[in-house]
């Protein structure tokens, strides 16, 4: 039974999320080093995290006629969205905030990235970063609806919007097993809302970094950290939604939650280097012509199973 933790646990969520995200960033750095043929030393592993103090001490760039208010607000709302989305994820037997509409809350907080990245792109008064912001909106129109139907499929399977109920409903069979399409669409959408891997289009190299183009110092750290926090929150949410939550033999629930989260995170980090970046217009066509019908049919399956019960 998943219980709500005391209020102070809200402060533990960002720390835990950041720890998992740091592990993901380290693994990503090691994979990059291996791909480049560099020796895998401790310095290589610490490399990405060693950027943190450098960025914190670095000067923040300002541009001519920038809309500083929207720019900073946009940059900060991306990591904030990651942390807020993670509030409803149960970890083992406890959850920082047990909400009766937890799935919708997760969805709403992840959608805050739309506003965040668009503002981050707009505020800098730079063409490249503006194009990056618009790219994320185009990408959002493509990924959001399949993601919503994937979330609906999991919620319909448990007949509840409460994340703890959804995890508990998988005591016999994981949703990932009998709703594989929803699971895969969900994982793809995690890349999309954290604009990493195949969905790094808004921060693409062809745009000199897109939304990241004009960011330096603490601003760059906030946005870069934000996308990894979102990826980690997405991996963490996959566990109660599709992988049975903290349920498992022998080990305690928190250990299973941690192990499953790390497994999903490892898959996402590995896949990020294997998949090419997709153009938003190409993915939009795939999403609307193939993925949305597929996700609707997938959501029909738990609905019919519920009716038959």
């Amino acid at each position, binding site marked *: 039974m998943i219980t709500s933790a005391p209020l102070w646990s809200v402060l533990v969520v960002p720390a835990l999320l950041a720890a998992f995200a740091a592990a993901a960033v380290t693994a990503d750095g090691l994979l990059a080093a291996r791909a480049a043929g560099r020796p895998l030393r401790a310095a290589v592993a610490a490399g990405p995290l060693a950027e943190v103090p450098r960025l914190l001490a670095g000067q923040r760039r300002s541009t001519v006629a920038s*809309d500083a208010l929207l720019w900073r607000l946009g940059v900060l709302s991306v990591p904030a969205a990651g942390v807020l989305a993670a509030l409803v994820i149960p970890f083992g037997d406890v959850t920082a905030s047990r909400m009766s509409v937890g799935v919708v809350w997760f969805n709403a907080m992840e959608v805050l990235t739309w506003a965040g990245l*668009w503002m981050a792109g707009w505020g800098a008064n730079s063409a490249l970063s503006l194009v990056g912001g618009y790219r994320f909106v185009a990408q*959002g129109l493509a990924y959001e609806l399949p993601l919503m139907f994937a979330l609906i499929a999991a919620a319909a399977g448990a007949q509840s919007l409460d994340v703890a109920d959804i995890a508990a409903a998988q005591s016999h069979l994981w949703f990932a097993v009998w709703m594989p399409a929803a699971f895969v669409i969900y994982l793809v959408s995690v890349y999309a809302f954290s604009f990493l891997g195949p969905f790094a289009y808004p921060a693409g190299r062809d745009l000199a970094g897109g939304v990241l183009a004009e960011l330096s110092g603490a601003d760059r750290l906030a946005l870069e950290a934000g996308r990894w926090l979102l990826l980690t929150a997405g991996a963490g949410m996959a566990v109660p939604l599709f992988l049975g939550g903290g349920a498992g033999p022998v080990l305690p629930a928190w250990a299973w939650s941690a192990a499953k989260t790390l497994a999903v995170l490892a898959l996402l980090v590995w896949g990020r280097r294997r998949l090419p970046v997709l153009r938003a217009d190409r993915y939009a066509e795939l999403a609307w012509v193939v993925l949305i019908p597929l996700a609707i049919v997938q959501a029909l399956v738990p609905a019919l199973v519920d009716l038959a019960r």
Partner: protein
Amino acid sequence: MIAIFWVLAPLAAASGFMVFRFSSMARATIALLVSFLASGALLILLGLGYLGVVVILMMVMEMIIMAVFMIAYMMNPAGLMPMSMTHNKPRARAISVTSFLLLAAGIFAVPWPPRAGAPPASPTFQLGAALMGSQMLTMVTLGFVLLATMVTAIVLATHRGRYDRFGDDLKRRPAADPAQGGVGM
């Protein structure tokens, strides 16, 4: 609870007011978004969790899409030149202040009845039962009207039809699209 209300309610009203003060379309849109976010949070405060979170979810997406069109169609979108979004100022001000005072006076003047009954255990379930039960016909009709409107608007707006994509005999595969590389269906 009351403290949170007194943070959110003035925020919603003030940012709604700022929509008409900002000359930048981007700032005006974000001010409206902040107003909607505060209203959504107020709904959560009232115990209507689902409605509040859905307002936040939908309004973020809607306001960002609106921003794209505001900036595409309005002159001077970045507000670098002063412009006003209001017309007929003195009369509009008089009307809005008078109607606000009348409505506010009404809140205090009306003898409110004492609460009868208790809120339902699950407002989300009640909402779903109402939409899918007694209001089913309304919702289905609305859904079809909205879908038909969207399809019609797209058909009217696009200059390319299926003969442009699939050729005169509709046999060309994949379709000839201006941006190559999609599904081509």
